């Protein structure tokens, strides 16, 4: 796996290249510990503690705070892929996404394929929320879209399905500011059903009253307000219901998850 290859490369460069592990680290060995997969597994146990605690606290379906229109960021930072490009996507942009389809399949009774126009005819939800990036910044935006619970109800989730996996049209090259693993890959995300059917989880097509811009995920992006920005997949073209995501891509349930980030991004 790419992650291990990079760790091995780093270990190689740090020991073989004779690079200086600075200051305290010589005594503390923080880098060596970080590069040890078994030690990282111990640290990663905290994700489970956090998830269980937050699931307990949010058990009653608590809602993310919604803001006033006057709170909306004048300019909202676009992150990750700013334009997926490619022949197919460029054509979709020219066509105003008239031929974009959102497929819902996998463990559902009635697989769906919906155009953006069809989604717009369905009952919608609008919410002004704060977008919290894992990097630390926040921006406030207004979003309108179809509640995912509505779509899942229409598709009929089969018993045994546990996760919704979101497949996106963008291939991301990483984000240097984050450091760590930066290998390119197809963007995807996944949510537990409890988050997928939360009232504020919507497939958004409008941002601040206007159709989504390309940089913000046109024509459709996921909003899952109680988690960090990287869960909010952009350019969504397919939602697959699965019982397990270990066989999908890197096996950790998302582009950033495959590069070491927490699958449960509530913190």
């Amino acid at each position: 796996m790419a992650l291990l290859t990079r760790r091995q490369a780093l270990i190689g460069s740090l020991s073989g290249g004779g690079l200086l592990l600075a200051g305290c680290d010589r005594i503390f060995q923080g880098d060596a510990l970080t590069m040890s997969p078994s030690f990282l597994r111990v640290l990663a146990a905290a994700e489970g503690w956090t998830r269980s605690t937050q699931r307990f606290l949010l058990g009653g379906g608590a809602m993310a705070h919604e803001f006033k229109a006057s709170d909306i960021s004048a300019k909202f930072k676009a992150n990750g892929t700013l334009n997926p490009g490619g022949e197919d996507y460029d054509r979709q942009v020219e066509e105003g996404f008239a031929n974009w389809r959102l497929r819902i399949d996998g463990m559902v009774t009635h697989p769906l394929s919906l155009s953006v126009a069809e989604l717009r005819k369905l009952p919608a939800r609008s919410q002004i929320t704060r977008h919290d990036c894992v990097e630390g910044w926040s921006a406030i935006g207004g979003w309108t879209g179809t509640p995912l619970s509505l779509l899942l109800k229409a598709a009929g989730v089969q018993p045994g399905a546990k996760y919704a996996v979101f497949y996106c049209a963008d291939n991301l090259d990483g984000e240097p500011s984050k450091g760590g693993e930066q290998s390119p890959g197809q963007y995807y995300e996944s949510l537990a059903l409890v988050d997928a059917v939360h009232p504020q989880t919507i497939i958004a097509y409008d941002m601040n009253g206007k159709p989504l811009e390309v940089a913000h995920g046109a024509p459709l992006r996921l909003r899952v307000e109680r988690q960090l920005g990287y869960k909010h997949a952009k350019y969504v073209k397919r939602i697959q219901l699965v019982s397990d995501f270990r066989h999908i891509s890197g096996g950790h349930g998302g582009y950033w998850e495959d590069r070491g980030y927490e699958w449960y991004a509530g913190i």
Partner: protein
Amino acid sequence: MTSQDAGSVGLDASKAKRPKAKPEVIYRHAMLVRLTHWVNALTIFVLVGSGLNIFNAHPSLYWGQKGDEYDTPFLALQAFDTPQGPRGMTQVGPFHFDTTGVLGLSRQGGELTPRGWPEWITIPSYTDLADARHWHFFFAWILVINGLVYLAWSFGSRHIEHDIWPTRADLRAIPRSVIDHLKLKHPTGEAAKRYNVLQRLAYLSLILAIAGMVVTGLSMSPGFDAFAPWLPQLFGGRQSARALHFLCASAIVLFIVVHLVEVVLAGPINEVRSMITGRYHVPAEHD
């Protein structure tokens, strides 16, 4: 000098035979205080190091709910290209300082790299938000559990009430204690058997600062915010909470610096030994 020297001239016949009076040894730190002290020390070391690595993913602080590259930070550590080459700049409010080599731009693996804090202070040393977060949240749990164990024991055993909470007499002695500290004069004899007022206030502040770290940290969690939206509001918003998280951590680092200086001044061997074995050699009274 031993305490026997004073005022005992000619009265104690056996004194000449006695080689040297043994210092009085008291049991100063309970097992639980010692244990939670060292767990806390390691935990804060890791949390500061990994926290600064996380900070480096977006080395700017804002006030309010929101803040990104389109907003004006009140503190930022950034690299800029100048005619003289890339420079690391620290922005505090309207002021800019060239901090090349340390803040904003410093060597990572030997090469000048844009990064808020330098590699010798972050955990891991290289920029890696994902792994720094794993370190941070694992040890954040340890900090909370360790802190709760300490507080439960300290309230239950009245350690807080007896040893930490300042008495009225303590508060009246603040000016005196400040002067003593400035003169680097440390309590001896009976006075050394209890925490002086500045110690009490410093330890109380540390407890409050750690509680502050936890609540400002939780305010940054979008999940926790859905549970308690009033919490980030209390601090003026999520970005204010992030800024206060950083400022509170700075206060803790300042505490640690002063704490370590005091340990060295008060007799490092005795002080460190007492925090390991619990036994403290009471400094004899001066003449």
